[in-house]
């Protein structure tokens, strides 16, 4: 081509990034990777192996070994052994290591970026401008948290050994999101990268050696799903952090049920991209490019559902189609391309067949360029003429495929956005601040971007609700995923059943007292019509209570769902009601002290202490109701990123037996203070005490349906609650088997669980029985990004 030709055509240049250094590095490793365990590379003769390929060229880049159960054992043991010294190193010592890792990444940004693109197929522009800088920032940011931990997070300690499993879409960045906070907070870890994209993790392991990470603190093992399962279920692991698909997340929830592990899951999504009539449509078009054609759409929070107000729908689609004409694709190492290769042939085929099959249910497909099987290129795709019931609207595609629907009103936009099993992220496009700030809190998602999409930062939490999983990564909220409360004092186990020796005969002369359930502000008879006697410590029948079943739970949850106005009420209002509840409870002091004594066998002074602690706790949460502020994160952009603690919604509380009044109040208090509605299942032994509280609730202006109480067989009721999709979180104090069943069943819809065995703490102690830990469990942090500027 002559200069004159170029002058006429004015084409861009292809600008291929050199892969020479990356290839040299791979060659120096002989293209073979075992596992990085206890600071050295382990290889097993005869280990199962798997090739690692460049998806854009099918070229084999390396071979990895797949970790066996023995390898996983070795890695977990190394992490366990390294734990004490790592914790003893202190905040400053750990900060130095994290700083060295940040610097190390920064020194080799080009190598990391090229390796990532070779391995994953994403455009080098993205690995260079997004993945690597964000990973660097994550280590810098968390070096700071390591140093500040003792000052800003008193009362918490590291969880211990963490098992981390990461996906193939952002291999290095997800590694950073996992490793940086875990190390900062004093944990040691075993990380398994995705088998499709292990190379930057291998390079990072080398970096750990250079950066002075003590042996065993970071262990990185290769393997596929089977290795991941072994790691997640390993009894030496105290916490599992997983990012990946919702089905795998559910299986991890099931596999770890009852193991007493902390768990964070960052799973799939079908995030809404909501464009109102008053949006800057050209801005929205570029936002869509960021939302769905970034990283080939292989982004868990991809804005894959475009919801647009009907009166600008045609205009937006026209602009979007025009924009799609200029999207370029090609060799991912070419700096001038917009869209690279799907991560693997398997993923390419998956997306292709999903779209093909999906279109059988209708829909108009718009693509500008053709599929290229030889490079696993799937073109940016726009699908119109689809409705909510369409499979491509409901399922996560994890590819560059956008579906479009329209809405008429703001309320309908919110409803459509939330009409998904997922709840990871969403974006709102409007130039009207009133509208944007009204809509953002109403979207069920962990992250809401206003007039932008797919922005991330280490200072800001990321994670979802509903079947998008739980836990946050980044920011202060992310640190708690790697911490547990320090100083819980296990209490001696008291077996109350031993006292239940009496008959079902009412004491002579007593008036029959039968307590019903409390549902929707009414006292309701059990569905099945069964009741059972409750005995005092002398074995006498004090009253009768209902025996609840699945339908009673259904009714109670239904009532709680309806009372949503409580969640929208002000903290000031909730504070007044909680004070009032304390006031009304205090009027019944003598009655309650007597009742506690006769029910639990406590001495008078103990019963009095429990009663007064209960009043104090209500006062604490009345105080907290308008003080559990969110944060404004310091994110490097011109804008405000607000971390808002929002009520979870409907919380199921399965209360402990121990200190029955106090523990009940200690759980109801924070849940109500933060604006949740409650379905309470009290301990079987002291169920009557919870029902006795109804008279207090009814006189304290607590709206109908905000607190609902069902008594009966705790385990059965707990499992029904755990499986009910309208419950947003379940708090459960129970025996190990019940806890296991609850955690297992919660995988149905991935509601959050906060499970404990009975007697895990001393409720009389304020440090153990109240405070921020409870408030955190009563809320979900939503990060709202609001860039500004006119």
């Amino acid at each position: 081509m002559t200069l004159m030709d170029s002058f006429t055509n004015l084409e861009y240049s292809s600008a291929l990034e050199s892969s020479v250094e990356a290839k040299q590095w791979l060659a120096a490793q002989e293209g073979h990777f075992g596992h990085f365990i206890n600071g050295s590379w382990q290889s097993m003769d005869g280990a199962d192996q798997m090739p690692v390929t460049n998806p854009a060229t099918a070229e084999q880049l390396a071979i990895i070994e797949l970790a066996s159960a023995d390898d996983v054992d070795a890695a977990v043991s190394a992490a366990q052994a390294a734990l004490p010294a790592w914790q003893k190193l202190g905040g400053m010592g750990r900060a130095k290591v994290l700083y060295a890792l940040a610097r190390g990444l920064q020194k080799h940004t080009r190598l990391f970026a090229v390796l990532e693109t070779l391995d994953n197929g994403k455009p080098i522009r993205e690995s260079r401008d997004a993945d690597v800088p964000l990973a660097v920032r994550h280590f810098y940011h968390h070096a700071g948290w390591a140093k500040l931990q003792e000052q800003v997070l008193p009362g918490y300690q590291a969880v211990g050994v963490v098992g981390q499993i990461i996906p193939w879409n952002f291999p290095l960045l997800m590694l950073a999101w996992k490793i940086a906070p875990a190390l900062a907070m004093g944990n040691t870890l075993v990380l398994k990268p995705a088998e499709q994209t292990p190379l930057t993790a291998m390079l990072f392991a080398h970096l750990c050696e250079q950066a002075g990470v003590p042996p065993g603190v970071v262990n990185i093992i290769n393997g596929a799903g089977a290795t991941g399962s072994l790691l997640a279920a390993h009894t030496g692991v105290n916490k599992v952090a997983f990012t990946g698909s919702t089905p795998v997340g559910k299986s991890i929830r099931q596999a770890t049920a009852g193991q007493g592990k902390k768990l964070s899951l960052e799973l799939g999504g079908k995030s809404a991209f909501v464009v109102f009539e008053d949006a800057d449509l050209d801005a929205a078009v570029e936002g869509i490019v960021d939302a769905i054609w970034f990283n080939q759409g292989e982004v868990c929070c991809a804005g894959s559902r475009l919801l647009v107000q009907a009166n600008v729908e045609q205009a937006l689609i026209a602009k979007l189609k025009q924009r799609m004409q200029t999207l370029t694709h090609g060799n991912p190492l070419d700096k001038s391309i917009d869209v690279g290769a799907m991560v693997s042939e398997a993923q390419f085929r998956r997306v292709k067949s999903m779209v093909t099959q999906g279109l059988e249910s209708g829909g108009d497909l718009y693509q500008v360029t053709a599929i290229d099987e030889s490079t696993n290129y799937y073109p940016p795709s726009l699908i119109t003429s689809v409705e909510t019931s369409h499979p491509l609207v409901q399922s996560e595609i994890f590819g560059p495929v956008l579906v479009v629907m329209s809405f008429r009103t703001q309320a309908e936009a919110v409803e459509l956005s939330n009409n998904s099993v997922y709840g990871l992220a969403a974006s709102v496009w409007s130039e009207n601040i009133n509208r944007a700030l009204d809509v953002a809190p109403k979207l069920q998602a962990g992250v809401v971007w206003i007039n932008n999409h797919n922005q991330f930062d280490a200072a800001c939490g990321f994670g979802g609700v509903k079947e998008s999983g739980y836990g946050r990564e980044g920011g202060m909220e992310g640190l708690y995923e790697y911490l547990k409360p320090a100083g819980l004092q296990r209490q001696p186990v008291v077996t109350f059943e031993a006292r239940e020796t009496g008959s079902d005969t009412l004491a002579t002369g007593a008036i029959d007292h039968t307590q019903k359930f409390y549902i929707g502000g009414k006292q309701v008879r059990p569905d099945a019509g069964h009741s059972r006697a409750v005995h005092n410590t002398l074995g006498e029948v004090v009253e009768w209570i209902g025996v609840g079943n699945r339908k009673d739970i259904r009714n109670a949850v239904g009532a709680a769902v309806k009372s949503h106005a409580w969640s929208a009420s002000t903290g000031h209002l909730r504070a007044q009601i909680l004070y009032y509840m304390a006031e009304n409870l205090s009027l019944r002091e003598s009655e309650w002290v007597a009742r506690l004594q006769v029910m639990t066998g406590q001495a008078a002074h103990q019963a009095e202490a429990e009663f007064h602690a209960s009043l104090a706790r209500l006062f604490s949460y009345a105080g907290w109701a308008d003080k559990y502020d969110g944060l404004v994160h310091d994110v490097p952009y011109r804008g405000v990123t607000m971390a808002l603690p929002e009520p979870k919604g409907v919380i199921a509380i399965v209360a402990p037996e121990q200190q029955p009044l106090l523990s009940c109040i200690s759980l109801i208090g924070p849940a109500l203070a933060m604006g949740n509605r409650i379905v309470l299942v009290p301990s079987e032994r002291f169920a009557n005490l919870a029902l006795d509280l109804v008279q207090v609730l009814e006189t304290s202006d607590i709206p109908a349906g905000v607190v609902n109480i069902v008594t009966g067989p705790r385990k059965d009721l707990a499992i029904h609650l755990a499986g009910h999709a309208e419950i947003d979180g379940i708090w459960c104090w129970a025996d190990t088997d019940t806890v296991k069943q609850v955690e297992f069943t919660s995988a149905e819809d991935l509601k959050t669980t906060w499970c404990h065995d009975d007697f895990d703490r001393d409720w009389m102690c304020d440090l153990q029985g109240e405070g921020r830990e409870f408030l955190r469990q009563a809320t979900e942090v939503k990060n709202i990004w609001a860039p500004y500027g006119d």
Partner: protein
Amino acid sequence: MTQPAHGATVIALHEQSGQTVGELDLPRNPGLAFDPDCFAGMKINRSATERRATSYGLRRSIKKQQQAAWLLKAISLIDLTTLAGDDTDARVRRLCAKAKQPLSSNLRKQLDMGEWQVSTAAVCVYHDMLGAAQQSLEGSGVHLAAVSTGFPAGLSPLPLRLQEIEYSVAKGADEIDIVISRRQVLEGNWRGLYDEVKAMREACGDAHIKTILATGELGNLTNVAKASMVCMMAGADFIKTSTGKETTNATLPVSLTMVRAIREYLAITGYKVGFKPAGGVSDAKTALLYMTMMKEELGLRWLQPDLFRFGASSLLGDIERQLDHYVSGYYSAAYRHSMG
């Protein structure tokens, strides 16, 4: 004429050109009757605009031969400008000579350009310099542009501003760069702005009119978008960012806002309006960013001099240095290239 503010038609911006190097037969924008519906709903999000504006250089590369070709193209898009109080006929003649022959014969030879002539699109001067400029440019094909209408503030009496245009046209200017009354924008008097620009367009006759918005004085991007639309409705052939005299002159976000308005106007009317960033485009690298923006947002057609110009004085010198680097592999110095 009432049209939706957001056109619903897909305009094929990226039609293959098959164009020649010279100018194309482009129907002039006749303008529209004043219609506030065309711009009243415009709202520009600054952060999102800035984000897009930073992406051109990150998403597209122009290197080696392509870069040389794009830079030669950039030369052909320049309105080589001098607007200084101490301009003289001699200074303007030197500028015109440079406009006609921007590249040294040595560089042309090294680029293997043969008979292929490249000149700047126009020379842009104050009215009083038109005589000398016209003499110098006679028969060269380089257009002659005059800044007008009380440049740069635009605050002289309207009849005088219109008369100024007529004077300049009579003196041989075939392009008139007018300044809008910023106060009309800041006071929200869109009708007033429309009427003024329309009158100026009429005063221009066959000469093409470039309307300078002085975007650095319009307050925000939404005003820039609306002013762009009003000027196009009033019959602007080009919309231009700046006089070069404001504190802030051409920037990519402002330019993107104007370019999107051009796209909007095209969707509504089917007429193509040109764009001219001025002030602030002083090096080759920045010029390539602007050209990339034009290609991405409006297509290749907008990289022809009848639809895109750079208002620049020092840009040409940097382009020469870059071309010199392309042929020699080493960076040149300003003194090695003839002054404009």
